[in-house]
């Protein structure tokens, strides 16, 4: 039923304002395993939605191929690709009630009445919409409308599920709840899914794999853990979470030096001693102490965020670092101008290529 998706050398150029082509997506190669949920993550304008729309068939690639399983899909119109897409704007049919919205695709397939009723009711049950079957979409909240859109897709049992920033119009609480629901539902039905978002937390929480895109190209593909702990570029490190970028000097095969302090690096790529390398240090991997540590610094900014306190610290000889300290309500916060000591966790340093 469900398929792997293969994208080979895909390009898309739009006509720019002066008529010359502007590349939206450049030379994308991707393979998505059957039943996986893969997120396309990137800032707005990075080409992620264009890529998704090409997979759905709403945009034609300038060059390159899209395969579902062994079938080349380039020349198939959207209505024959057997994909189902959840749109950012919900796009529920306003003149049809919830039941008919969900039944729309099945009726087009000319299934018999009992089967349509059985399948629609089952999906409405799964998405918690059973009691709203005869409501009109205008009587539903945003979250419920998006559930209708989701139900309308799942009932088709498509080969590929596509999500185009489906949660960006919902409020924060509902967003969290919906992404858990989407993830659980996707795992239960086991349909290959591609999910577009610009929200890194959303991407981390629902994906098997994340594809980080920037300016039309793929920056890195990997599990959420890999992308976060081992970013392959400054852009990825910066886009996924907060990061400190440190100038380091290579000492030997497993040690670098920052402002006279030597730190171990795990799985260090081959580097010549004395070489200057940029390194990533995550704010939560730094321990703060009032009396002892490897680096000395002065607190320049304090933000209390509830679950963490975020400090900006001027470190002697090493620039400004962001430091997140967990469970800040437990002890008094460090004050502005206070001198503190910083110790990075062991092997927390990641060198950029």
């Amino acid at each position, binding site marked *: 039923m469900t398929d792997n998706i293969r994208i080979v050398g895909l390009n898309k150029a739009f006509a720019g304002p002066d008529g010359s082509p502007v590349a939206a997506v450049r030379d994308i190669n991707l393979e998505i395993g059957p039943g996986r949920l893969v997120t396309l993550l990137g800032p707005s304008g990075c080409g992620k939605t264009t890529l998704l729309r090409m997979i759905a068939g709403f945009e034609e690639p300038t060059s390159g191929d899209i395969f579902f399983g062994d079938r080349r899909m380039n020349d198939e*119109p959207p*209505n024959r690709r057997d994909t189902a*897409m959840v749109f950012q704007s919900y796009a529920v049919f*306003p*003149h049809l009630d919830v039941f008919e919205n969900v*039944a*729309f695709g099945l*009726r087009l397939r000319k299934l018999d009445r009992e089967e349509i009723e059985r399948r629609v009711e089952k999906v409405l049950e799964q998405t918690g919409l059973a009691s709203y079957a005869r409501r009109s979409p205008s009587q539903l909240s945003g979250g419920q409308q998006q559930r209708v859109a989701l139900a309308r897709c799942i009932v*088709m049992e498509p080969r590929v599920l596509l999500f185009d920033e489906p949660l960006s119009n919902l409020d924060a609480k509902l967003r969290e709840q919906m992404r858990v629901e989407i993830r659980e539902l996707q795992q239960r039905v086991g349909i290959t899914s591609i999910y577009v978002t610009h929200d890194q937390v959303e991407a981390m929480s629902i994906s098997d794999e994340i594809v980080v895109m920037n300016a039309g190209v793929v920056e890195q593909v990997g599990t959420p853990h890999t992308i976060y702990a081992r970013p392959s570029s400054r852009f990825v490190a910066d886009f996924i979470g907060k990061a400190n970028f440190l100038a380091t000097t290579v000492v030997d095969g497993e040690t670098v030096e920052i402002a006279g302090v030597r730190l171990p690096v795990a799985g260090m790529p081959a580097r010549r001693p004395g070489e200057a390398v940029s390194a990533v240090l995550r704010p939560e991997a730094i321990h703060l102490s009032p009396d002892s540590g490897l680096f000395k610094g002065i607190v320049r900014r304090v933000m209390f965020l509830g679950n963490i306190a975020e400090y900006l610290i001027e470190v002697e000889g090493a620039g400004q670092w962001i430091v997140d300290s967990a469970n800040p309500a437990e002890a008094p916060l460090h004050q502005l101008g206070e001198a503190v000591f910083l110790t990075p966790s062991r092997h927390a340093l990641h060198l950029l290529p």
Partner: protein
Amino acid sequence: MTTPISGLLGMLVAFLVVRRNFPGRTALEFGSILSFAVPGTVVGIGYIMAFNAPPLVLTGTLAILVACFVFRYVPVGIQSGIAVLRQIDPAIEEAAQNLGATGLTTFRKITLPLIAPAFFSGLVYAFVRAMTAISAAIFLVSANWNLMTVQILNQVGSGRLGVAAAFSVVVIAIVLVAIVIISRLVNRWSRHTAMVRF
């Protein structure tokens, strides 16, 4: 006769103009307004000159009257269709296609019901104007295919004011009844499609 043709044609052109991108799109939109801008008498004479010689000899037939009215009043349908279509999220139509609907099915099951109000006003306008038109039509009528409005003018010209007034009342009555019928039809039809039976 004129009414459904110009209503449907108007919605179709509006759909093409708003949703499809093809060479000459703006020219089509502009051209569709042209016949509305030209004075009726000029249009009438134009139709006579155009269709008085082969390949299309239509002068004095019903067809020429219908054609003239359709093209003269279709811009209203087009413009109101365009206004409504621009308000509808293109994602709604994409969603329908995505779920397996062809372009035509999408237009029939999704787009048309959503633009029904505009469709209705296009219909009514085309009908009312066609019933009461005189400027272009006065050149196109013949003994076989006359129009009530032209008839009224003739009666007034001959000094038979009473007959003219009677004709006028009949025209008004027909228009009112027709508006009611059209609105009923459109209403029932959009409710019917709302149930979506394929």
